[in-house]
């Protein structure tokens, strides 16, 4: 644990606790004001409740050059990244990919290479369409572990998170409250519903929220496409390739478009934001991750468009290579934030439930 990061966040949280002006912006402050002293676990929980909207930075009368030097979005972003790195197994991977965009690019190249090798070495046993390049069984053999292993790793990390933030046994209502908040990205709207202070100093804007929505729903649609296809394959014996009006295609194409546009827009938006209000050392890793995710979407779309041309085998290897890399890196990149954020919202729902019971 980087105690200096926690200590700095604690110092700032104590100032906020005496001030309280930002109470209306997000769920960090009500949670913060419920305590008088902050344990390391409290700070970790606050950090994971924060989504870096920066409202509390631009509103703060104590930012530098004032001696109190408040920059809560940055302090919490640093604690947040440090907490993800600490909880993740294996740790060295997290430490590398969270901060190094180059490492992500390298992993992507390795992903491509693996898939090219697979198409050459394993090849097909005479399937149709994509399966003519790589057999269905081979795809399952590669992607099932590539999907499940990261999930195990994340589950393991979340347990550590839960222990540190002193989580209680989860009730159904905690989950529904948390999912509702995440689904609407309520906090990204800020307390008054006008969005973040991200790309243009203190101007409130919905850009970040809408772009984040596009990415999240784009990703979920792509995921739904694959899941539906799996069910169709095993459940109903309906095998790919599917037509345009089939569920996998409709989900996949709309998801791919949202994902590609969303990631492109997010990368541009981030360029306009002030790096020093986030975690500057995670900049490269974050941009690398956004580009990787966007590439997954884009390469999927290109594959769809050029699926019946001679380019298809190469495009398939490239797309599948990026998907493989993306899955394997999930626990070690910004992708992990979704899981932690949900856990933090569940924990916060528990806190509120406790408070209302006491009253």
């Amino acid at each position, binding site marked *: 644990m980087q105690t200096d990061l926690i200590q700095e966040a604690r110092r700032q949280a104590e100032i906020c606790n005496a001030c309280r002006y930002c109470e209306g912006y997000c769920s960090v402050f009500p949670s913060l004001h419920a305590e008088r002293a902050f344990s390391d676990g409290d700070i970790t929980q606050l950090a994971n409740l924060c989504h870096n909207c920066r409202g509390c930075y631009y509103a703060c009368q*104590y930012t530098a050059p004032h001696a109190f030097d408040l920059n809560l979005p940055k302090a919490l972003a640093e604690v947040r990244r440090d907490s993800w790195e600490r909880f993740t197994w294996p740790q060295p991977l997290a430490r590398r990919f969270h901060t190094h965009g180059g490492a992500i690019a390298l992993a992507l190249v390795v992903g491509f290479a693996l898939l090219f090798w697979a198409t050459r070495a394993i090849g097909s046993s005479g399937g149709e369409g994509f399966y003519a390049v790589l057999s269905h069984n081979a795809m399952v053999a590669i992607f099932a572990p590539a999907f499940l292993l990261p999930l195990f790793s994340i589950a393991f990390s979340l347990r550590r998170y839960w222990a540190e933030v002193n989580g209680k046994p989860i009730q159904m209502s905690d989950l529904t409250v948390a999912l509702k908040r995440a689904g609407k990205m309520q906090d990204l709207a800020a307390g*008054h519903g006008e969005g973040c202070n991200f790309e243009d100093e203190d101007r409130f804007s919905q850009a970040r929220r809408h772009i984040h929505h596009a990415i999240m729903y784009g990703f979920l649609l792509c995921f739904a496409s694959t899941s539906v296809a799996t069910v169709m394959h095993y459940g109903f014996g309906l095998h790919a390739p599917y037509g345009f009006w089939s569920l996998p295609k409709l989900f996949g194409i709309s998801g791919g478009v949202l994902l590609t546009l969303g990631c492109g827009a997010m990368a541009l938006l981030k360029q306009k934001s002030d790096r020093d209000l986030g975690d500057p050392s995670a900049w490269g890793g974050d941009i690398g991750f956004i580009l990787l995710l966007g590439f997954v979407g884009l390469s999927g779309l290109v594959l769809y468009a050029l699926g019946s041309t001679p380019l298809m085998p190469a495009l398939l290897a490239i797309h599948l290579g990026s998907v493989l890399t993306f899955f394997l890196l999930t626990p070690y990149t910004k992708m992990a934030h979704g899981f932690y954020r949900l856990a933090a919202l569940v924990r916060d729902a528990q806190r509120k439930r406790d408070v209302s019971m006491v009253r």
Partner: protein
Amino acid sequence: MATPKEAYDIAVIGGGNAALCAAMTAAEAGARVLILETAPKPYRGGNSRHTRNFRCMHSGPLGPLVEAYSEDEYLSDLLKVTGGKTDEHLARLAIRTSEECLPWMEEHGVRFQPSLSGTLSLARTNAFFMGGGKSLVNAYYRTAAGLGVDVLYEAAVTHLELNSDQIEWVDYTYEGQSQRITPKAVIVASGGFQADTDWLTRAWGEPAKNFLIRGTPYNRGVVLSDLLDQGVESVGDPTQCHAVAIDGRAPKFDGGIVTRLDCVPFSIVVNKDAERFYDEGEDVWPKRYAIWGRLVAAQPDQVGYAIIDAKSLNLFMPSVFPPLKADRLDELAGMMDLPAEKLKATVSAFNAACGDISGFHPTELDGVTTSGLIPPKTNWARPITEPPFYGYSLRTGVTFTYLGLKVDETAQCSTPSGKIKNLWAAGETMAGSILGQGYLAGFGMTIGTVFGRIAGREAAAYAN
């Protein structure tokens, strides 16, 4: 922006709430407006950047405000704190207009939130700004920019040339150079003079050197004294300032709200000789913190020390600096440079004077009092016995000064021989016209908003 080349209709001096309200209103009326703000951009907004709410009349639920708050109730609350030293005509104007200010503020970008935790008593009377005064100031600068108002930061106005009944020109320094502009009209909204320690010392005497200034270091009264020197009519007592007791470790300037200390009612307060000097439990703290500013100012070295024990630590809002902590009183005395034996004696005498404490109630006047002690502690008097013991130092923190420009109901300034055709004033710099003494939480922003808008309207009408 570099040196302004354009001719402006109106120059607004200052960059806080009153200045911005005036500038936006004038620009909406079609005037070309320049704001001259002496602070650099990160410190723009004067004392307004430290505020959290404004007090607003309302005949029914309005925005974040619950129930109703009538003109008469508002006025009677004001008269209670000013002891009648109030211009009732201007006060009623401010109060009555405050109701239409709230929606106007929202239209100009201000967002409100329910009253902050720990301030529930204000939910009916005061509307809290989401994110506090700096977010209000930010929103106004954005709106003003959209209306075409130009802003020059680090532009310190030094002189307004008064020629019989009008201002001829405005001098200011910018990037080390003297500049002069000749706007048709001028609005002064540059606050009080509390940040000029020499002036404060002249008015208050030597103790003022030890005062802390709760807000901006830029309100040094330069324009105020320039105008007073030229015979512009003033109002208010130069020896009066609004001061409260704050944490003695606060920075000299700009400590703002977080230096507030709410521990006094649960403590005993001693001076540097370890002697008590006033009833700590006279009333609830929001009604007493201003009195304590003066009480501490009257003690040697203008410092006080509040001492509590373990059982009281969680009864008040946390403060920005953690208290000094020791297991024994003499140890605490050592940390605070107090005579240890004397402190022990003072605490013992206090403890011996405490009686039945079963009725103790931290948020109400509970009548749990000392007997036979001078000065007494008339509420919340519980013996200080449970280690660890905690200590906070107290100093006088000045909020603003009362001496200001005298204005009429159109916010216009005058000399003894009549109105000045093209000079208006708004905000703290004319608040003395309404507040003779005392202070009502949230009234400063009301005065600035109401008179800022009036000044903007009148100046634009004159310039057009």
